[in-house]
């Protein structure tokens, strides 16, 4: 594939609003996980909640999209000059030539969960103010973002559970390569809701204490929320050597089970190999891997086997979910942005919360930050339904 430039990017999660705060947290190995006080959830777990989402007010012309998920998106779009960078891209290419490809798993379902508590006692009808299209609909995130950024090109929400916002990079680069568009806003936004808290709890996949990816005693995930965006364009000829490129994408399916990966991680392996092939790289070209690393016993074991079989067991890697929580449909984009930060800051972020790395998993798991120049990194994202996606990012220099 032809490389694309991430000409602007931003992320907002439990470890910070915008890139500076996110990088500061990574440098300090600070976790944003805290005991769950979200809404009416009565589950003993920790979550990565973004501060201040409830206080966000959408402008009047976007009010029809009001819901926690779109407020979080709005908060993130306002950081790091992202909106201005998109406006500049519109001036260059035209609003019709810029696509919007965003990942989410639950969109605005929190509004529906709350509306169900306020159904008419006689008829069962939802409250009159309930908005399907603007809040509940899975597409609402892309419709909102498209309107907020005043774009007029193709748009879609990709909803493949926890691989959603990694896969948006692959769809966007195909649309650019096909000549359908010149640039794309990609990203992912997922926000806390009761469906995921109670759902993962029902599957016994939720940890009581902050999640410990790749720890010998790991016992599940901590759910987080995040919004992350990137602007993808063909690289300019005078691209700064500190610019970040998307070099490869790989996608595969497990064809195995709805919520568990095959123990050998063969689907993950296929996605990683495809990403290397698309980038024209050898395994030894990758300097760091950001694991999907959810913290469940079976996920981390399968991913560890897969990574060792492709990149070798010496490849330094970590999961940043101990810091941010598992942000589900936003995880792919959030971790792509963290990888972009890692490249620019010459920082392999150490995984927090993990105290004793599982000796049975063949990985070189980083618990401490390592400050070394990085040229190329990989990020893995896997989801329910056996959906796998690997991305390779690099410094232009």
């Amino acid at each position: 594939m032809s490389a694309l430039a991430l000409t602007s990017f931003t992320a907002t999660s439990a470890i910070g609003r915008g890139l500076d705060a996110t990088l500061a947290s990574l440098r300090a190995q600070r976790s944003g996980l805290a005991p769950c006080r979200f809404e009416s959830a009565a589950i003993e777990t920790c979550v990565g909640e973004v501060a201040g989402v409830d206080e966000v007010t959408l402008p009047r012309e976007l009010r029809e999209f009001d819901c926690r998920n779109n407020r979080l998106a709005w908060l993130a779009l306002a950081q790091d000059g992202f909106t201005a960078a998109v406006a500049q891209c519109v001036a260059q290419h035209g609003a019709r030539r810029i696509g919007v490809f965003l990942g989410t798993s639950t969109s605005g379902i929190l509004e529906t969960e709350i509306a169900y508590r306020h159904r008419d006692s006689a008829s069962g009808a939802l409250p009159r103010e309930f908005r399907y299209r603007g809040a509940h609909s899975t597409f609402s995130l892309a419709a909102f973002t498209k309107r907020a950024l005043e774009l007029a090109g193709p748009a879609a929400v990709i909803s493949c559970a926890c691989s959603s916002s990694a896969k948006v990079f692959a769809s966007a680069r195909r649309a650019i390569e096909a000549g359908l568009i010149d640039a794309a806003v990609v990203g992912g936004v997922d926000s806390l809701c009761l469906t995921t808290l109670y759902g993962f709890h029902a599957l016994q996949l939720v940890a009581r204490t902050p999640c410990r990816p790749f720890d010998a005693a790991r016992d599940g995930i901590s759910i987080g929320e995040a919004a992350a965006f990137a602007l993808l364009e063909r690289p300019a000829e005078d691209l700064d050597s500190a610019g970040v490129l998307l070099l490869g994408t790989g996608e595969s399916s497990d064809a195995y089970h709805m919520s568990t990966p095959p123990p050998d991680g063969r689907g993950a392996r296929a996605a990683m190999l495809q990403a290397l092939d698309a980038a024209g790289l050898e395994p030894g070209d990758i300097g760091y891997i950001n694991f999907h690393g959810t913290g469940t016993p079976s996920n981390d074991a399968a991913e560890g086997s897969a990574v060792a079989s492709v990149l070798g067991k010496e490849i330094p890697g970590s999961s940043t979910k101990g810091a941010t929580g598992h942000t589900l449909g936003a995880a792919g984009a959030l971790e792509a942005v963290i990888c972009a930060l890692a490249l620019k800051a010459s920082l392999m972020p150490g995984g927090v919360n993990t105290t004793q790395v599982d000796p049975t998993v063949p990985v070189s798991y980083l618990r401490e930050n390592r400050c070394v120049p990085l040229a190329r990194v990989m990020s893995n994202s896997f989801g329910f339904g056996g959906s796998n996606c690997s991305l390779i990012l690099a410094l232009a220099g």
Partner: protein
Amino acid sequence: MDTLRAAIESVGVLGPGLPDWPTTACVLRDSSPWARSATVLPQPIALAGAERRRTGAVVRLTLAVGLEATGRSEIDPAKLPTVFSSSSGDGQNCHEICATLASADRQLSPTRFHNSVHNAPAGYWGIATGATAAANSLCAHDASFGAGLLEAICQVNVERTHVLLIAYDTSYPEPMHSVRAIPDAFAVALLLAPARAAAALAHIELSLGDEPADHLQDAALEQLRAAVPAARSLPLLAHVARGTSGRVCIDYLDGASIALEVSRAPGS
């Protein structure tokens, strides 16, 4: 914009009174009347017992049309990348989850939760067929068919591969039905291939524009087209059924439309 081309190698359809592609093609050719009746979803026999019991309407619907399309081709479904597009997930399942979370006892069924992901049909498709290639699941509200077609045709042109597009929608029970009134389940599967002279039902050339979308002459079918996002495919299917060449416009986003030049031979 570069011209995006694809061949339609086979079709699968399931909808109200439309049990398969041959019946649908007859209705769209006006050679038999549309006997509208509730969509009948077949048992998902491609799945083993444990999985079969866990499936809802969206999985049965998508397996049926996907297997019809691949069964009408020489292609092994295990080797195909797929694109699933639907305006929402499993409506019944979503309702049950929201109702449980609004009740005093919030214990969700684990199966209900993993079936709630938008890519559940893609996951079960992989389990049923052994397909390990990329599977994408997306949505664009009422433009979901168009968004799925764009994703699929980009894959066909960029990756030079066959792609199976499955667009589908099911209805919600009340109280969601009142706020999102999809009348019944409808799905279409299109097996798309890189444009070439091989045997194909039709060839398409795609461009984005803002011409108004084509409507269907038959008032009842037009009602179905307008009410179900996946049924926005019907004007295209009518061309394929009749074997006619010409331009067909399909609803897309915010007043935009997707124009398709449909022909019997590639690039003619």
